[in-house]
Every structure is written in structure tokens, then in C-alpha cells.
């Protein structure tokens, strides 16, 4: 353990005061007791249900049963049970059903299953509460002992004392904090990206049938990268074939493609994806930025309000520059969106030179383009 110059020593007691932790533990214990009581109640119901199933099965064996028929809560009449195979069962909400013995048994079995799931859920809740209580107990005892948490700035090593969730021991100074952070960020973003992809995939499948606007994508300006048209073709087929994409970036391109397919219909989600999308793009070469352009172009026809971005991307394309330009988003378009585009775009790395150009380009385009296809804006922009 290294003693760093910049470190903080905080007694655990200050973070989790001992008596408060104990009070919290007490509260959790109460909650546990309550859940246990409910569990017992539900178990009682389940037992009653089982007994009733037995009874319902046995009653039809006789034509009549002599019983004491209750009359209110405090009186009985001697009488007999008749029609011993007919049962009137409550289905809930004041609805009853007349059923035979067998059918009633089925109903009761289903009720029993529901009760069992309830019991299981209660049990899991109790387990969670128990772990919570044990955590509180442990914290209370630790705090009482005067355990101390030591945090040090990373000078190659990070060490801790006390709570296990704070910090880990690092191997040597080879990995600086920033690098680690960067790598973590990229991985995190990639993971986030993939999970968003999955979400969008599902949504896209749902929205697939309704959309037939892909034909417009064929009118993309030929000046744009040749990949685009074939790419559009692919998208038209709603296939994720990667044949047209440069093989070297197949993996990431595929994800972009999926983006395109999936996010075509989801303009609102696009902005969420963009930062991640561009983050990945930023780590790749220019061709990937083309892919992003494709992404934008494809979305163009479908999403009128997105079109202002296309020229921006075209500019990026022209610049053929670093991928940092790609993430530049035009400022909020004033177009009336056909979709629920909130206009909030998360920009990853602002690239100042391009920004001032965009608003003017956007605003000049916007008034004239509301009725025309977004792709023609491309041409306008090109010329």
C-alpha cells in the first residue's frame, strides 16, 4: 500500500453513522417481519385452497349431504346439500360461474398456482430485505469499530481500507487514470451502443411494415460516395447485408447499417445514437464517416427534419477530414417535424469552424425544403 501525498482519510462512521445504521437495520427488520406475516397469510390461503379442492372432489360422491346450514353469523338450520355436482364459484369482481366439480377443481388449481407465485415473490423480497439488513448490521459494526476509509489519488496505485466496494488495487503505474478512463469510456459506449441497437432492432421490426419511403433513397446525388446507392439498395431490401461496405470496417459498418435500418423510423432515437455512433466513428478512418454520411442520407428521405444535417455531413465529406467533424450536428432545425423530433442533439466533439456555416445553410435550406424531398436539398447544397 502506497501512502500518497493527496489522500483523504474518512472514518466510516462519518459516512454511515453507527446509530443511524442500526436504526435502518431495525426498520429493515420490521419490514422483514411484515413480509413474513404476509407470507404466512398467503400460505394459509394456499392450504385452504388445497383443502377445498379435496372437498369439492368428495362432495359429488353423494346425492345429498345433511348439513347445518348457517343463517347469518349466529344461527344454523339443519338442512341438506343438494345438487352436489353444481358449484357456484367466484371469479372475481362480483362475477360468479356455475361449474361442475371437475371444472371447479381446475379453477381452484389455477388459483393455487397464482398463490404460489405470490409466495415466491414474497420469499424473494424477504431475501433482499435480509441482505439489506445484513449490510446495515455490518456497516453499523464497522462504523462502531472505527474503521476508516482511505482514498488516495492514483499515482499508479489505488488502495483502500474498509468497505470492499471502494477502489481496487491496480498493478503498477503502467496504466494511468486517464487511459483507463478512456478505454473504459469507449467500451462502455460500445456496450451502450450495442444495447441501443438491440432496442432499435425490435422497434424497427415493429415499424417495418408501414414504411415504403426507401425508393426516395435511390435519388441520392451521384456525387456522394458510390457506396451509398448500393447501400440504399440494401436498405431498401431491409437486409443487413454487408457486402457493399468496405470489408475492413465490416464490423463497425454493420452496426452503422443496423443503425440506419433501425433508426430510419425513429428520429427521436437517432440523436441518442449519434453520440455513440460518432464515438465509434471517431476511432476509425474516413470511410467510416462515409458510413455515417450514408446513415444520415438514408434517414434524410424519411425524416424531413433531419435533412438539415445532411448538408452538414456533406461538408464533412468534402472536408474529408477527421472524424471529429462528423459529430457536428446542425443546430435545432426550425422545421415542423413530421415526427417527434425534440431537437435536442447530443454533440460529442464540437467542431467550431463548421458550426457557424451550418446555421446559415440550414436556415436557407429550411424554408424552401419543407415541401420538397430532403434529398433535393442535397443537390441544392452541393451546388
Amino acid at each position: 500500500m502506497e501512502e500518497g501525498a493527496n489522500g483523504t482519510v474518512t472514518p466510516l462512521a462519518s459516512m454511515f453513522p453507527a446509530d443511524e445504521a442500526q436504526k435502518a437495520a431495525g426498520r429493515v427488520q420490521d419490514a422483514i417481519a411484515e413480509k413474513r406475516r404476509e407470507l404466512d397469510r398467503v400460505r394459509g390461503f394456499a392450504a385452504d385452497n388445497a383443502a377445498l379442492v379435496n372437498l369439492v372432489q368428495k362432495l359429488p360422491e353423494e346425492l345429498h349431504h345433511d348439513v347445518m346450514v348457517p343463517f347469518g353469523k349466529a344461527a344454523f338450520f339443519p338442512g341438506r346439500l343438494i345438487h352436489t355436482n353444481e358449484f357456484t364459484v367466484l371469479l372475481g369482481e362480483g362475477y360468479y360461474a356455475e361449474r361442475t366439480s371437475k371444472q371447479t377443481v381446475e379453477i381452484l388449481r389455477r388459483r393455487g398456482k397464482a398463490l404460489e407465485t405470490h409466495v415466491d415473490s414474497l420469499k424473494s423480497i424477504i431475501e433482499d430485505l435480509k441482505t439489506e439488513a445484513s449490510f446495515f448490521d455490518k456497516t453499523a459494526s464497522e462504523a462502531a469499530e472505527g474503521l476508516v476509509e482511505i482514498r488516495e489519488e492514483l499515482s499508479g496505485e489505488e488502495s483502500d481500507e474498509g468497505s470492499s466496494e471502494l477502489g481496487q488495487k491496480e498493478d503498477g503505474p503502467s496504466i494511468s487514470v486517464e487511459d483507463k478512463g478512456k478505454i473504459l469510456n469507449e467500451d462502455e459506449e460500445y456496450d451502450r451502443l450495442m444495447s441501443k441497437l438491440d432496442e432499435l432492432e425490435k422497434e424497427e421490426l415493429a415499424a417495418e411494415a408501414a414504411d415504403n419511403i426507401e425508393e426516395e433513397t435511390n435519388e441520392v446525388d451521384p456525387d456522394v460516395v458510390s457506396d451509398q446507392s448500393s447501400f440504399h439498395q440494401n436498405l431498401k431490401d431491409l437486409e443487413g447485408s454487408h457486402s457493399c461496405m468496405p470489408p475492413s470496417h465490416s464490423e463497425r459498418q454493420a452496426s452503422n447499417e443496423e443503425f440506419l435500418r433501425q433508426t430510419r423510423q425513429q428520429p427521436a432515437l437517432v440523436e441518442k445514437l449519434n453520440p455513440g455512433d460518432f464515438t465509434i466513428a471517431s476511432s476509425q478512418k474516413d470511410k467510416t464517416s462515409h458510413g455515417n454520411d450514408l446513415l444520415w442520407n438514408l434517414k434524410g428521405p424519411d425524416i424531413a427534419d433531419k435533412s438539415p444535417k445532411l448538408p452538414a455531413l456533406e461538408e464533412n465529406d468534402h472536408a474529408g477530414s477527421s472524424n471529429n467533424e462528423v459529430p457536428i450536428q446542425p443546430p435545432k432545425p426550425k422545421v415542423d417535424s413530421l415526427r417527434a423530433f425534440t431537437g435536442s442533439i447530443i454533440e460529442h466533439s464540437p467542431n467550431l469552424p463548421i458550426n457557424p456555416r451550418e446555421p446559415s445553410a440550414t436556415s436557407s435550406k429550411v424554408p424552401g425544403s419543407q415541401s420538397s424531398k430532403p434529398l433535393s436539398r442535397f443537390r441544392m447544397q452541393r451546388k
Partner: protein
Amino acid sequence: MDNYRLDKVHKFEEFVDQRLKPDLVRAVSERDKVFEQQKTFSDLRKNIENLQKNSVTSLRTLVNLGSEAYMQAEVPDMQRIFVDVGLGFHVEFTWSEALNYISLREEKLARQIEEYTHHIASIKAQIKMVYVTRKYAYAFASLLNRLNMLVHHF
């Protein structure tokens, strides 16, 4: 010394509240139970009177087998009725005997309710007394405080 007295008053009041308030709650719940019993018997009486009036001899009902599963039941002869007389016993009555018994029972229940009401009223009075005393004690204690301060000044 006045602080000490204040503390005492405070403690006394807390102690009383911890005892009196739960007592009150318990007494009220007991009285509610008796109320329910009274209602049960009065319902029974009304029903029997109804049956008598309409000269009903037989009856068809749905009997709860537990968990809201009902079965038809028939009472062919309604001359005998078994009424709960407490301690798990049910006595066989004819209608008029049953009505007689029920009215006696209702009287007894009414007397019990009266007792509970008295008890509840006394607990409430005690609580009120504690609050009033505390108010006066505080006022008194603060007055004494002020007097003390004045005295110490001179």
C-alpha cells in the same frame, strides 16, 4: 430547579401518553367488537321476524364451502333453529323461543357497550387532564424561570 420540574412534567406526560393512548385504542376496538355482535343479533332477529311473517317453511340457499365456492342447500323444515349462545354452544330453539333469547342477548350487549363507553370516556378525560396540567406547568415553570432571572439580576 425549574428545568428539573419541566423535565419531570415532560416525562410524566410522555409516560401517561404511552399508557393512556394505547389504552384508549384498545377500549375502542373492544367496544367495536361488541357493536358488531349486537348488529349480528339484531339482523338475525329481523330475519326471523320476516320468516315468521311470511310463514316460510323451507328455504334454498347457497352455502359457502370456503374460498367463495358455493353449493346449493335446502332446508326442508325450518321449525328448529340453532342459535349460538357462546362458548361454542348452539341451542335448539323454536322461532318464538329464539326471538325471546335474542332480545335478552341484545340487552346484555347493550349493557356491555355502555360499560365500554364509560371506560373510554374516563381515559379521554385523563388524557385531557394531562394536557391541561402540562400547559399550566409550562406556564408556571416559565414564570418561575423569569422570576429567578430577575432575582439573580439584583
